[in-house]
């Protein structure tokens, strides 16, 4: 009898493996292994019960999961903060949180209003503040303007006097020599250091750039000034600031080990991943479009789920992650990131009434009339407008009595 059930248990477990989600199955097997006081028959009943429980908690056929997801996110959304908050940290970043951020995600805005990157560091740079700082300096977009304190010129002598800021040079790890070579390579003119003060650079502009007749042309000087200021020294474009955070503190062999990471203001995933010292497997951005472009649509899906859950969690709302997953699935359905809205998911519905019910009703009707669209009243929205039972839940099935009685022979 016992052996009988052992055999049956094995078969049932094989069946369960193909049916249950991996995490549930693994937990089940683990718990069964621990429960040594159960007989094979009891174990068999437990597995049976787990399978029954799983099936009964699945979404029913015809369940309007989209509507449920919309309500489950929408209702707590009404309690969310409407304001943009300052993020209290070592260096203060502006971070969009709460409802504005949630709207940004589902509207699939090409640029978040506060782009932000979480840059993790590789093994060699992770545990040393100095090395982390090095990477941060490589990331920060640095132009001449960032390291100077003043740029003076007077009309008529073709000379610009650039005064460098020693503190900023130190902070960005830029030498005056580097600045000189950057300016000279740009072809603006020859640069010489002031013999009395090495921080003052004299830029002599060639006659070609400022010809004799326009020696007193103010506009040319003004253009040159902004050109010099914008000269690129180093860093990654769009990364305006990079600051170091302590990610984790742990004690290994009586020594305090700190793991550092970098948070940047501004985002440029494609370029940052190429920077030396950056961990390419963990670094992320809050710009979903960049993720889709660099890492693909599946990564974008995961990112949408994570961003939505993060916003909801930070606002202290308990919304099941399955709703966020459904939103992300729909947004990435056809291989590009679409917004949930008139220009995306809702605007691509085949039904005129469904589109008109969402936004810009009159325009939708005009355009539908021009194209001569038909309305088949098959969706939920259309059915409710037309006052017929929507094809949802029990409305999905139709039962009729067949008047033809088929005789079964034999």
């Amino acid at each position, binding site marked *: 009898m016992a052996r009988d059930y052992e055999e049956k248990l094995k078969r049932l477990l094989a069946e369960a493996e193909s049916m249950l989600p991996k995490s549930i199955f693994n937990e089940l097997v683990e718990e069964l292994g621990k429960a040594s006081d159960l007989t094979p028959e009891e174990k068999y009943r437990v597995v049976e019960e787990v399978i029954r429980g799983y099936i009964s908690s699945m979404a029913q056929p015809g369940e309007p999961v989209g509507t449920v997801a919309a309500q489950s996110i929408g209702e707590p959304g009404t309690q969310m903060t409407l304001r943009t908050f300052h993020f209290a940290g070592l260096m203060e970043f502006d971070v969009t949180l709460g409802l504005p951020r949630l709207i940004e995600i589902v509207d699939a805005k090409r640029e978040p209003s506060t782009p932000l990157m979480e840059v993790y560091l590789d093994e060699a740079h992770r545990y040393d503040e100095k090395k982390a700082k090095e990477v941060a300096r490589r990331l920060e977009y640095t132009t001449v303007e960032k390291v100077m304190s003043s740029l003076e010129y007077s009309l008529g002598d073709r000379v610009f006097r650039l005064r460098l800021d020693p503190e900023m040079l130190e902070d960005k790890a830029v030498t005056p020599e580097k600045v000189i070579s950057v300016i000279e390579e740009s072809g603006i003119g020859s640069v010489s250091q002031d013999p009395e003060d090495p921080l003052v650079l004299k830029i002599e502009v060639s006659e070609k750039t400022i010809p004799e007749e326009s020696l007193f042309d103010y506009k040319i000087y003004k253009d040159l000034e902004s050109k010099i200021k914008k000269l690129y020294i180093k860093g990654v474009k769009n990364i305006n600031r990079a600051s170091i955070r302590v990610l984790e503190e742990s004690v290994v062999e009586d020594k305090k080990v700190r793991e550092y990471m970098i948070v940047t203001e501004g985002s440029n995933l494609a370029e940052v991943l190429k920077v030396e010292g950056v961990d390419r497997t963990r670094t992320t951005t809050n710009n979903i479009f960049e993720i889709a472009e660099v*890492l693909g649509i599946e*990564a974008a899906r995961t990112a949408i789920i994570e961003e939505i859950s993060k916003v909801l969690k930070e606002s202290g709302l308990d919304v099941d992650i399955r709703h966020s997953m459904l939103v992300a699935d729909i947004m990435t359905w*056809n291989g590009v990131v679409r917004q949930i809205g008139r220009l995306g998911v809702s605007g691509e519905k085949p039904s005129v009434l469904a589109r008109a019910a969402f936004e810009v009703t009159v325009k939708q009707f005009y355009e539908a009339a021009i194209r001569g669209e038909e309305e088949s009243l098959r969706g939920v929205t259309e059915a409710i407008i037309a006052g017929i039972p929507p094809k949802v839940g029990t409305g999905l099935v139709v039962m009729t009595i067949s008047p033809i009685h088929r005789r079964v022979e034999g």
Partner: protein
Amino acid sequence: MSGKAPEKWILEHRLVPEHRVLSLEEAIQVLRRLGVKPWQLPQISINDPVVRLLNAKPGDIIEIRRKSPTGGVAIAYRLVVAFERRS
């Protein structure tokens, strides 16, 4: 879309799940099991960086093993479609 091929290391990124191109036999089996036509599957662009690395063609079906927070591992399928990204 730039002609430059995506770098191999993007596959190791935390956000990128495992992608695999199904063979014709497997694809038919999957479609039969799910009871759907290929065009009813979610889609993935031929220009998607991961698809370009896999050298998949339009019409191929890609199996994606997602790490799911609820189910451990979830398997999803996407149909490779040829269209330009609206960017």
